[in-house]
């Protein structure tokens, strides 16, 4: 449907910029916390998924790549992706990796571990990332940035792969933030629906 464009229809630009800025200075990765806290706050305070439904730049980016640029072959998604157990397992996996990242940051903060300047893709492949980091800041701040950027890049890559093979926004079916905000809404609005 042709409707009026809203300011938030352009948020895919922010998502793209975020990924690019990581190449320039890894510290920009900290901005990614916005995509972590905003959806949570909206779902906790308002009890809805307005973040997914309206604002999320990543969803828009996949829509743009898949629908406008025609990069998607739009097959039906495998049923496993939408199964509750799969979505929640993926969420738990993601949160575990997130916790691990915080722990590593903490160890670097405490001095019991050296800063590792790599971006880890798909939790296994290491990319040396020295070019976007200068040594002038506290190592733990950089460590968190590397960890967070790895999470964002990995999820974008997974999202792009499923965007290509299945419907453009297939990432949204198993996106941990989407699953988490929906779960919060379920708890918060229990009995109200």
């Amino acid at each position: 449907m042709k409707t009026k464009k809203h300011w938030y229809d352009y948020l895919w630009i922010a998502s793209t910029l975020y990924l690019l800025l990581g190449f320039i200075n890894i510290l920009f990765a900290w901005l990614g916390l916005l995509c972590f806290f905003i959806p949570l706050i909206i779902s906790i305070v308002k009890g809805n998924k307005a973040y997914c439904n309206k604002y999320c730049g990543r969803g828009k980016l996949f829509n743009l790549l898949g629908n406008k640029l025609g990069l998607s072959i739009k097959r039906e998604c495998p049923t496993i992706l939408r199964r509750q157990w799969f979505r929640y397992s993926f969420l738990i996996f993601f949160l575990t990796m997130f916790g691990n990242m915080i722990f590593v940051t903490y160890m670097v903060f405490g001095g019991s571990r050296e800063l590792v300047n790599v971006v880890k893709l798909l939790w296994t492949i290491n990319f040396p990332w020295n070019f976007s980091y200068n040594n002038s800041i506290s190592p733990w701040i950089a460590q968190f940035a590397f960890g967070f950027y790895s999470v964002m890049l990995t999820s974008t890559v997974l999202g792009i792969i499923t965007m290509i093979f299945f419907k453009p926004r297939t990432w949204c079916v198993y996106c941990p933030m989407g699953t988490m905000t929906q779960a919060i809404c379920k708890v918060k609005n229990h009995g109200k629906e």
Partner: protein
Amino acid sequence: MKVKKRAIIPKNQCVACGVCVKVCPRNAISIISGVYAKVDDSLCVGCGLCAKACPASIIKMEGDVQ
């Protein structure tokens, strides 16, 4: 006898992403409490655009005999 098609969304499989809401030309779908999408039968014209777009591929088009 007329067969009217309409979209059916299984509530417990919906991920509430809102993709269907955006494509519906009749504004017939809304996300209820951030949990699932619901079709307003009185607005739905059975065009099937939502079923095509749903990333979870859960929307079925059903014909009602009226």
